[in-house]
């Protein structure tokens, strides 16, 4: 068995087709590399072929009115600084990108990489989940669209096959009176999340909650939706007591572990605190306060 990361070949495809051909050809022994900030730390010994996808034209952010489309090679820096995310529910993309990590890593790490590495504590998945994002996945066999909730299969596991590439995130336009918020709890200002949480609330014009979405990271093998908590909020007028109740419910929906960063108990408790905070903030924003 190979014990060391010693890839024997490096490819830098210029087109998507070229990249997909390489992935199809080399299968499990190949690995696409984007920002490199995960792969070159992990150094997986089984990788024999590195397929550098950085030259593919997948570094874009565009809004076609119906969908916001983010190329999977967009860096956290591009997202943090994009003028498209200054307001509305989309702003949590920029806010979470800002909290993502140190300046240098933001220039390198890509949103696609952050999602595909499927680390339970990743910051972007909860944000994408509450924004109802879908991933566009392509291979030589064609294209498929997978919702963020169906994308993760476990710790560092996704539904992506070895011949596929995630090329784009598609985020539907949020309805009016929608507010969203993201909160990350770290040990220092530059950290991996002990817990992170995102929420999106849409209000009807009478102030009743039309829709609520809550997602958390680092509290289960994959990022999760807190569906029980969401259900409590829908079609109700949200007050402080309801926020408290929903936060408690969300916390009960988590299945955290203890590790060097935090105990499971703390993660559970913080899930409640964070959900409360993102709900309060989302609500404020939905009301336009």
């Amino acid at each position, binding site marked *: 068995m190979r*014990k*060391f990361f*010693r890839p024997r070949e490096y490819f830098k495809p210029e087109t998507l087709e070229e990249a997909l051909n390489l992935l199809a050809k080399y299968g499990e022994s190949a690995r696409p590399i984007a920002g490199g900030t995960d792969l070159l730390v992990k150094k997986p010994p089984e990788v024999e072929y590195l397929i550098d996808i950085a030259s593919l034209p997948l570094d874009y952010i565009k809004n076609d009115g119906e969908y916001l489309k983010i190329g999977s090679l967009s860096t956290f820096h591009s997202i943090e600084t994009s003028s498209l995310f200054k307001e509305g529910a989309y702003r949590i993309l920029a806010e979470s990108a800002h909290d993502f990590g*140190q300046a240098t890593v933001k220039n390198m790490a890509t949103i696609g990489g952050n999602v595909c590495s499927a680390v339970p504590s990743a910051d972007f998945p909860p944000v994408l989940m509450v924004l109802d994002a879908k991933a566009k996945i392509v291979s030589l066999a064609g294209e498929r669209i997978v919702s963020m909730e169906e994308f993760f299969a476990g710790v560092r596991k996704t539904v992506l096959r070895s011949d596929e590439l995630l090329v784009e995130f598609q985020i539907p336009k949020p309805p009016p009176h929608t507010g969203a918020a993201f909160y990350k*709890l770290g*040990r*220092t*200002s*530059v*950290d*991996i999340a002990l817990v992170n949480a995102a929420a999106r609330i849409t209000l009807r014009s009478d102030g009743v909650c039309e829709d609520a979405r809550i997602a958390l990271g680092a509290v289960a093998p994959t990022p999760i939706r807190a569906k029980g908590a969401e259900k409590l909020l829908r079609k109700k007028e949200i007050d402080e007591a309801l926020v408290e109740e929903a936060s408690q419910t969300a916390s009960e929906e988590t299945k955290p572990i203890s590790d*060097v*960063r*935090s*105990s499971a108990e*703390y993660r559970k*408790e*913080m899930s409640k*605190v964070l959900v409360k905070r993102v709900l309060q903030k989302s609500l404020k924003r939905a009301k336009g306060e």
Partner: protein
Amino acid sequence: MSEKELSVVGKPLPKIDAYEKAVGKARYTVDLNLPGMLHAKILRSPYAHARILKIDTSKAERLPGVKAVLSHKEARIILGDEAVLDDKVRYVGDKVAAVAATSEEAAEEALELIEVKYEVLPAVFDPEEAMKPEAPIIHPDVPLVKGKGNLRDPVFDYGVGDVEKGFKEADYVFENRYTTQRQAHCCLEPDVGIASWDPSGKLTYWTSVQGAFIVRGILARGLNMPENMIRVIVPPVGGGFGAKYGRLEDVLCALLAKKTGRPVKLECSREEEFVTTRVRSYSVFWTKTGVKKDGTFTARYVRAIIDMGAYAYGIYMAQRAGAWLITPYSCPNCRYEGYAVYTNTPSSGAFRGFSSVPIHFALESEINRIAEELGIDPLEFRMKNRRKTGEINPYNNVPIDAKGFDECMVKGAERIGWRRKRGRREKVEGVKRRGVGMAISVHFAPALHPDMLVPGVAEINVNADGTIHLLIGVTDIGQGINTTCAQIAAEELGVRLEDVTVSNIDTDVNPWGWLVAASSTLMQTGGAVRAAAAKVKKQLFEHAAKMLEVPPEELEAKDRRIYVKKESERGIEISDVIRQAGAPSISPYFVDAKAAYTFGAKATYTVPMYIPPWGAQFAEIEVDTETGQVKVLRLVAAHDVGKAINVSIVEGQIEGSLQNSIGYALTEELMLDKTTGQVLNPDFLDYKILHTTDMPKIDVILVETNSPAGVFGAKGVGEMGHIPTAAAIADAVYDAVGVRIKELPLTPEKILKALRER
């Protein structure tokens, strides 16, 4: 020389090595490569305690590129209680075997091919467990206290008066238990060495270290060689903080180079750095304090349990820590017991604030608690109890010089707004609470102990044009000692800073020097520099006196010129003095020659007495009562530095200490698996040191008291900033939310738990 006349000392001049560092041209040991150089890697133990039953290196040796493999069979060389390679391992990460190969890859692959059969032994990871009689014995061959498991003999037990009597006289007796965590140095440049032998049998060793001559001694003993056959060169060093004082890996690297006949570079990975650098110890403090109602101490007692880990580098921690119980406050009855205990964990050792930092957290936290319980303001309580000038310090029978102690407290308190803010439990933004806290510190300066009276040595050579070449025996590890010593020489000799060149250490060239440790470098070596410069000045004055036709004692030197004190316009350029001293000759070669042997001197200096460097720090913090997170908003650090030879360097020492100490208070902890003893966070991802965005507003207040023991009045400043911070922040947390955390670091989980239990 009175202060107003100083022209180089006291100025915030740029460091002389900053230029090459700013352009990326400084070559650190990691940057050096020799022709034909091999790369070494060390196989490290996966077990915390095991005997090596069998080790087979043959497969590794056959791997292409591998030039040598060493195991305990060839390298069981024992220095103290540690072997270069042993047939027993005592912590996860202990050295098992070493490989030298033509590439790092080949060396790394070879490690996987070494077959080791271990007999796993029971292990113990907690010092209090390790002192139980039934604990597995880690070092059967060293002196241990009978019936106390791995407790190293001797137990350090000293003090003054009779504490039992003192407790009886007390109105209140307070008892407590504090613990402090393992802290890693995190030098950005990892440990590294390059060994190269020449056919005459001489070894040259380049390394990143805080004491070149100490490493030379380790190599000489480990290799059984005469010291003159070993040359240690220290290029610029990427940080020390106590981590780099020579290790048996140095011997291992030299052995690999000897076996292969080629230069060998042994560079630690960051993971190895975390696991094998001798960390600040995990420590336990049992405190007992007797006080009168009015706050007068009747007795103070501490039992300190210092976890040495696998090897006894931390034993001095246990020996010295009592100094910080006895020195700062008046109390007729004090007793200190220091226990040094082996465990199957990474060894502990020196780290900035050696022996001071952990016990200060315990003692100062306890002072804050007692003040609170007695209803006395912690600042007043300290003012009342601190030792007065002239009082004899029972620790070393030296009279106390408390000048600066009050000033640190008063100025610091004023800056933070102590009277306005203390005790208000200020509420901000719903769930957030603010508070302020304080603690004081005392440390080496050095000269605390007779055995710390290591002299500094300096040598000054004078060039024919009056510029200076200064050689000292201690290492510039970034703290700026080369610049500071250059300033001292320039001041004394009356030349400019740019006239002085200071070479990095080469043991074949430089005079002997001790470690950069115990805040002693400036005090000892700086003193020697001034003494050597004074000798050279005397030589210059003797010549100049003849030229100016006045007695030498009427002369003064400044700005490259020697002049008559009372008639400053009557003078002569130093370069002219030297030129005149050279034999008149038509050939410049002979002028230079005469000048070179006419002027120059070597001197040693030993600090005559212990004048404590006082300090007081004040923290303002904010606690999020829902998450338990602490944010430090402001840190005021007032320190008695004696005299700042270079203000910018001195501030930098304290500012840098605060990055280390705020991290120590809040986030830094080397964590071990409780069942295997393995380090769980050997990387910066999970060993959290503070980034730019984590640092609070910092106010450094330099209190200058002009120490009679230090060169130009200076005190040792390298460590003081680290010492009081954790207790000050813990006190501020109490002020904000009413809970006292007694176990460092102050993690959000601990704070929440305490809030719940309140």
